[in-house]
């Protein structure tokens, strides 16, 4: 019997999905602690206690300037070394919604040169900007999961999963066509917006106008993963919007958390 996997769920001003995200990890068998960013800055060594670090959803610092920007800036200037150490130590990082925005701003995703590439890790390569509709939207979407991705979190996933998006700035734009090609080639595009059969389509199937229908990406190792949809709110069947119709018995969000925990157990 090994010790339980420890997960740090980051809190920061405006982050608001920390509690349900911690709950999801606990349901998956981990110990989950909600850790305030200021407490980490005061005692960075605490980060070493954890095997999984999660950047949950919300509106860190009100999305002022740009979504994720101010928290990313704080982490870059106040916590860079412990974060580098964490990523280099074969540990797992998950970013959801605002968390993905932070990871992309930080350059921890997609980090096409890999986690040990020194300064280039901290270089932003893509952007998440205002939805094409110009609106925040809460909407359940189908996601086609890439079977050839190194992503640790989606191993053995069904081909299509169903989760909600809840964002105003989720439109994924890579820096260049070349970068997009590299992401495709390395299997870094983990989930794409689609219809229920996995076929691509326009709005509202792709709710924000993301290039190549990108909903979530990982780094080349598959250990750092971020997505706009919220798996933490589909960890019991009655969260599925059609559960009263007898559908939604596979709990798509849960698999992501179980995979993360099992990475350590196995």
């Amino acid at each position: 019997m090994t010790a339980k996997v420890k997960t740090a769920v980051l809190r920061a001003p405006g982050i608001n999905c920390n509690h349900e995200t911690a709950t999801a990890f606990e349901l998956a068998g981990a110990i989950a602690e909600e850790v305030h960013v200021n407490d980490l800055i005061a005692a960075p060594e605490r980060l070493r206690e954890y095997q999984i670090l999660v950047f949950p959803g919300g509106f860190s610092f009100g999305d002022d300037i740009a979504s994720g920007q101010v928290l990313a800036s704080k982490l870059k200037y106040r916590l860079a070394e412990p974060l580098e150490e964490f990523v280099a130590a074969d540990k797992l990082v998950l970013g959801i919604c605002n968390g993905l925005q932070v990871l992309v701003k930080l350059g921890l995703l997609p980090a096409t040169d890999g986690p040990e590439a020194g300064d280039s890790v901290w270089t932003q390569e893509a952007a998440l900007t205002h939805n094409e509709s110009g609106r925040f939207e809460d909407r359940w979407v189908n996601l086609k999961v890439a079977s050839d991705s190194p992503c640790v979190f989606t191993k053995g996933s069904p081909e299509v999963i169903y989760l909600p998006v809840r964002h105003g700035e989720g439109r994924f734009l890579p820096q260049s066509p070349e970068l997009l090609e590299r992401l495709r080639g390395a299997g870094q595009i983990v989930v794409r917006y689609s219809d229920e059969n996995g076929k691509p389509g326009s709005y509202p199937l792709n709710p924000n106008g993301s290039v190549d229908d990108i909903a979530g990406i990982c780094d080349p190792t598959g250990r750092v993963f971020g997505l706009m949809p919220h798996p933490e709110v589909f960890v019991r069947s009655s969260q599925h919007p059609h559960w009263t119709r007898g559908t939604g018995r596979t709990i798509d969000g849960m698999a992501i958390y179980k995979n993360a925990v099992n990475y350590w157990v196995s």
Partner: protein
Amino acid sequence: MGFERPQLDSRSLRLQRQIAGYLGKAPTDARVIDVYYLDLELAPADAKRVAQALLADPILEEYSFTPRFGSKADWLVEVGGVPGVTDNVGRTTAEAVADMLGLDRRADLVRSATLYAITGDFSKAEIDHLCVGLLANPLVNTFNVLSQTDYPALTYQAHSLGSAHQPRVDTVDLPQTDEGLEVLSRERLLALTAAEMRQIRDYFSREDVREKRAALGLSDQPTDVELETIAQTWSEHCKHKIFNARITYSEPGDEPVVIDSLFSTFIKAATEKTAKEKDWLVSVFTDNAGIISLSERDNIVFKVETHNHPSALDPYGGALTGILGVNRDPMGTGLGAALIFNTDVFCFGPPDKSEADLPEGILPPRRIFNGVRQGVEDGGNKVGVPTVNGAILFDERYTYNPLVFCGTGGIMPKFIDGVDTSLKPIEPGDLIVMVGGRIGKDGIHGATFSSIKLEEETPPAVVQIGAPIVQKKMMDAILEARDRLLYRTLTDNGAGGLSSSIGEMAELCGGAEVELEIAPLKYPGLDPWEIWVSESQERMTLAVPPDKLDELLALLDSRDVEATAIGRFTDDGYLTIRYDGEPVALLDIEWLHGGLPPLDLVARWEPPADPGSKSGAPVSIEPGEALKQILGSLNVCSKESVIRQYDHEVQGTSVVKPLVGPDNDGPSDAAVLKPRSDAPEGVVTGCGINPKLGSVDTYSMAVSAVDEAVRNVVAVGADPDRIAVLDNFCWGNPILSADNPDGDYKLAQLVRAARGCHDAAVALGTPYISGKDSFHNEYDLGDEVVAIPPTLLVSAMGMMAAAEKAVTMDSTRAGDIVYVIGTTKAEMGGSHYTELAGTPGPPPGFDGEIALTAYRRFHQAVTKGLVASAHDASEGGLAVAFAETAFAGGFGLEVNVRKLKVDGDLSDVERLFSESNSRLVVTVSPDNAAAFEQTMADSPHSRIGAVTDTGRLVCVGVDDRVVIDEPIVELKAAWQAPLKDIG
């Protein structure tokens, strides 16, 4: 900062669409550019670093230190904040810049603005029009229109906030005449009557008061601090003077009766009468929100507020402040609750009403709609509270006085380390700690302002803009402090600011002493009375045992939340305020809270000559066509475009969402949440509101609103024996006077509504746990005063032993049997059909005994798992409920209305469109039909048809002729069309 690639710039593309819509012609180009002014000497390298690494996105945006983005534009419009209005972006940016450069934090380090670069064939007048109508609100924004040649003028202008003004305290001599007192009240915006002012004068001339004051060096006239304190405490907003008045009520042919307080007689009485059987009532009417028991472990709380007047002036800021304000009510209840849901109900003027038809200073309804919606979106989404239920209603008479109801529910463990969290103890010697934002001149006189009607010269100082993230940060930190029991109790700073929060807490303890100069200010130059009554947002007041202070302050500091001890609670019976050590106020607390003389008012009821009729002869209309028109009417149509812009599932508690069915677009009757992941209990919330009935008979409106709120939560599965309700009255001015000649009629409407609230709640056994009223929703056009229709919102919070027993309103399987629970009567008064076709009739009545039995039996059926779908029948009657049940599930419905249980001889139209109360449309699998009918045996119900796979709604009439036969896709399209793209 602007976009490098305009085609990816959704904000600019949206601006282009908005300009085209507003001015009627499209711009050649229009760009949104973010501007940051840094009040800082920076080395060029540092400036570049800030721009590159913080302010501009390296992938998408470019930056410049001069306004070169607009260099090709015909017009540049810079929109910023009026000095003193909260600049949320500036504040966050200041923190980030300070972090980055290792500087001390300073809130005014950065000022943010938005630059609009517009190219197109527009005149200066058109651009000015655009500024006022779309880009800026002069009450909160400054704007600066520049043509190309003026660009150099776009330079930094430091906002000099505050002033060299030396704070001072004035003594106010109270005039001897009533006229003089009234003038004083008006000039100082006190909103007090001559009788109330006399009461104040009498107090200050009392011998014992004079002696006590003289001993402290205070004169025998009030200071401005004292006068303002009394005005806040005695405001309609805080004391509900109309609801507590002595009312002489008469109806034609009857002897007048005297009602001593509508609140005690009807609202509180209803709770007292129902309370005996409700062991789950924990705290009602005493705290900031009502508290009820959900489970052995948890209590839940609920409060609904209005924020009408500020939303009329600044829709975005008003609504945002409204939602953040009501958030602080559960937060400030007992030891403090965590927030679990928001609700919002809006009443607006018709969205197609053009600006040209409105007097100057009145915002068009569509702009109010968009601003309010955006405010609620930011207030709910950014704080991480799901917005789960609401309504949007339209009526011409809301044009000048839109209504914005904001509600918030919360949850708290019953005990923390053995401490009962529902109580509010304070010990003498406890410190008064103000937590959260700093104090500025914003929101001075909000409480008294809401007690007067809007006029063109309404002062802008009352407009405030909330900061969701500041509040979220404060709430998170306070919950951490709560769980460590670092304070004894708390309350919110809402209307009246510190004067209210400390005043209320001092009443609990018996006294308080405040050192006002310690309170942290946004800028210098505030007079002590301004500090005391300012409604600057995001603040709570805590009572802290002295030995916990250091730990509390350390925790809050580590969460970047400011907190300051500004005094202590006492038990000497006085509220004592000092400034720089000098006493500036000394008020007897018992007198302050109990000395207000009750109003004496007159109410006179005249029944409308022809209830429910509409002018003009009845028109003939096919039932199918009528159904489509009602589905496509603004009050019934889909609100999906608005609902989707609210996060309705953050926190992961959702069980029944606002949009249901296979396409996620059916209109749910109520929301179900499961607030604890490790406990089965469900919390249900829904509402009832129907101002159309208010224009016919407010008694019918009230019983119908209570029944509808209860019916909505029962429909999704709430236990009818575990439902609490809240009342929110919004009215015109019900005080008879020379310039308000029908005040006695408006008061009679209020009396009847309050009586209806009482009767329905007693019959259904649903206690009121909290409520709020808003009067003076009138606008003086000069030659005419426009009052809103009497409007009552009833909000319900119900409970379920098991949330996962919930049902939704979408039909689920072809072959299921369709039932209608309840009896349909010829009650066309105030109905949608009557509005359409002009057929008069009486408004809906209410039989509470029958309703309660029906809801109990239905709940048994739900608990046994016998119900496939259930939908409330209300606006538009059964026809609308059939249509919605059908298209939300993607199935057809075939029903025979001859089989309906009816009262009397009803036509097809009455069967389909009457809006009788207490009815539900239910579908049941054939396997469960026998058990369902057995369960419902002693409650009126009728088996009238089946769910089909034909994709059509077919209604057969009394003579077995088909009266409605419409494809559900067309019905759905009609229902979705009107507000598809709003917002």
